[in-house]
């Protein structure tokens, strides 16, 4: 299948994160320009530009039937925005250094943030309060992921190991690795059986996190892989790298199905629409691109 870019959105600085609403009608992007763009699909019109963060926005997540947006920023805050009014609903803080990553549980009750202070913070987003501090990393944290069943959190960073945390007990239950280079991104497969991680190398590693061993590796990028994302059905894995390229492959076989060219700088964020028909990418080239799966074979 061919994939063509259908929309391009622009920020005034690098774009770090992107997310589709569950109904596919909205796209949100977080940028180094400190703003969050919320765009209407398929028109491409800007619905709202959320301003208030004092530093780069590293992660955005739609919540509450797409009426709210959760954003995490290097300014050490986790904020909730009302998308209809564009107003800030809540702002939580607790990290002592740059907050660099965030993931929300599938049931939208909890969020986890990672930071340069080497800690993870667990948040109850319904009651807007911090509920736990997860300590164990020996260097800054750069990526976090939530297991599909909501029971586990995975995190990684400069200490080269992936740490698996049990959410209920708030304790680390496993350590996977080490990776040869600092971790950049982590994602659980939708069936919860595999953990995919990328680091400063061009290689993507697939871990069987129960055994703690690498099952396979994916190659194809020329420089470090900054972001990985599964399609909701788990069939495809997209990766974006410092080579300005997005690779979409069939996860089971590893076969490369598409190489998306067009960005002029590192890809920092990738998101799939829920129906698996569109991919959005966020890049250091200050743009967000939406790629449409075509029904036509090349």
């Amino acid at each position, binding site marked *: 299948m061919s994939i063509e870019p259908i929309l391009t959105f622009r920020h005034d*600085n690098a774009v770090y994160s992107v997310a589709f609403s569950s109904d596919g009608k909205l796209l949100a992007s977080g940028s180094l320009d400190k703003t969050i763009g919320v765009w209407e699909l398929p028109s491409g019109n800007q619905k709202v530009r959320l301003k208030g963060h004092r*530093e*780069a926005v*590293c992660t955005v997540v739609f919540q509450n039937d797409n009426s709210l947006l959760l954003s995490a920023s290097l300014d050490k805050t986790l904020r909730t925005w009302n998308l209809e009014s564009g107003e800030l609903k809540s702002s939580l803080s607790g990290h002592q250094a740059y907050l*660099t990553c965030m993931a929300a549980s599938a049931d939208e009750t909890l969020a986890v943030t990672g930071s340069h202070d080497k800690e993870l913070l667990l948040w109850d987003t319904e009651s807007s309060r911090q509920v736990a501090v997860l300590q164990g990393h020996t260097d800054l944290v750069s990526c976090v992921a939530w297991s599909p069943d909501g029971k586990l959190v995975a995190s990684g960073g400069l200490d080269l190991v992936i740490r698996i945390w049990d959410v209920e007990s708030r304790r680390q239950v496993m350590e996977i690795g080490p990776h040869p280079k600092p971790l950049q991104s982590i994602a659980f497969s939708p069936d919860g059986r595999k953990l995919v991680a990328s680091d400063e190398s061009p290689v993507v590693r697939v871990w069987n996190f129960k055994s703690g061993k690498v099952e396979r590796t994916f190659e194809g990028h020329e420089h470090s892989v900054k972001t990985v994302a599964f399609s909701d059905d788990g069939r495809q894995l997209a990766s974006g790298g*410092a080579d300005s390229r997005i690779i979409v492959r069939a996860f089971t076989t590893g076969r490369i199905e598409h190489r998306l060219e067009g960005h002029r700088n590192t890809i920092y964020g990738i998101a799939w629409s829920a129906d698996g028909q569109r991919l959005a990418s966020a890049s*250091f080239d200050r743009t967000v691109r939406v790629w449409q799966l075509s029904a036509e074979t090349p």
Partner: protein
Amino acid sequence: MLTIQGSGLKLCDGVARRSVLKIGALGLGGLSLPQLLQAESAAGTGSSHKSVIMVFLTGGPPHQDMVDLKPDAPVEYRGEFSPIRSNVAGIDVCEHMPLLAQRMDQLAVIRSLVGSEGRHSAYQCLHGHPTLKQPPGGWPCFGAAVSKLQGQVNEETPVAVSLQPRMGGAGWSQPGQPGFAGMRHAPFAANAPGANDMVLTGMTQQTLADRRTLLGSMESLRRQLSATDAIDGMDSFYRQAFEILTSGKLVKALDVDDEDPAIRERYGRGSKEPAGYGDAGWLRNEDFLVARRLVEAGARVVTLSFGRWDWHGQPHGTNFDNARDHIPALDQALSALLDDLKERGLDRDTSVVVWGEFGRTPKINKKGGRDHWPQVGCALLAGGGIRTGQVIGETNELAEYATRRPVHFQEVFATLYRNLGIDIDRATIEDLTGRPQYLVDHAKYQPLPELV
């Protein structure tokens, strides 16, 4: 607030004279200065005077990722970029500089710039001297020194113009101090806060249709002020405001909307948003175009800052993310400037220097960045009649230090002064004690013989 009324001048500090023109804040319903002066005919094109355009790459550019690549070094040193050949045999540059690679015959590359103080500041690039142990009054910046020694090309254009905006990083923000050259020689800071607030209020275009009357008022005003030394007594900001008000040539030069659209596109636009995470200036290609226009208008020294090159790594992008963002912009803007100067016959009289306060660490840090490296850096030079198409100096295999022909900042300044016709072995400016000070330490540093 500077008010001009009737045939006199009223200063808001209490000089009691009537005024017709009130220069005040925007929003009072008056015409903006560019609008008012837009009707003036273009005054003069090209210039036979010597000039320098200095581009300050704020924050310290990575020499090993731009003009001194080490493709054989270990990956943790050489980084992500590959060299490409230029149009001069034996000179390779970064793959993200394809336009400049095709103009290398017009450039001289210094790969062994040494003598950095190691401070995050534009000071050394603007003054040539270290910040410590300054003579009484402080060293004048390059533009102020030139202003003192050579004076204006015409009455309407300051000798030295700085295009640097105010930045969060204070050390980067300075346009250059006048030092013991005197306040009147301070560079005009075109993008300083307030510089754009010159609005003529209480007047309409119809009212000002009699251009001759207006200009006559200005001339009368100038004569009065000159006679009473009132201009000298003005706060330098108001002096500059006065100059901008009465100088159509300067305002026109600063207004790129007036430029041929095709020329504008060649330079590229850029943005006025602070580059990087906000403590530096902007990445605005059009400043290069403004610099050319200012030279044509009579400026002898134009300085501009370009981007934010202090790339320590995540979480604000790796050194290479930022380089992929900035280097192509520099490639386009500088190439356009070189072409533009050449096409207008200004290249032999206009020297261009591109540099920053230091280089960057040879080994990439764990966050994908490079840190400060005052041991060696780089510079690009063009124009001014220098011998181009060459590299001066060499570093070791990891770009850590100069191994051959280290070039000091003051040698570059000596070369620039020489290009302007200033003899550094003779020219002096008295400091505040009356002691004559040479512009550079001329006993140690002379114009680069490889270039002149």
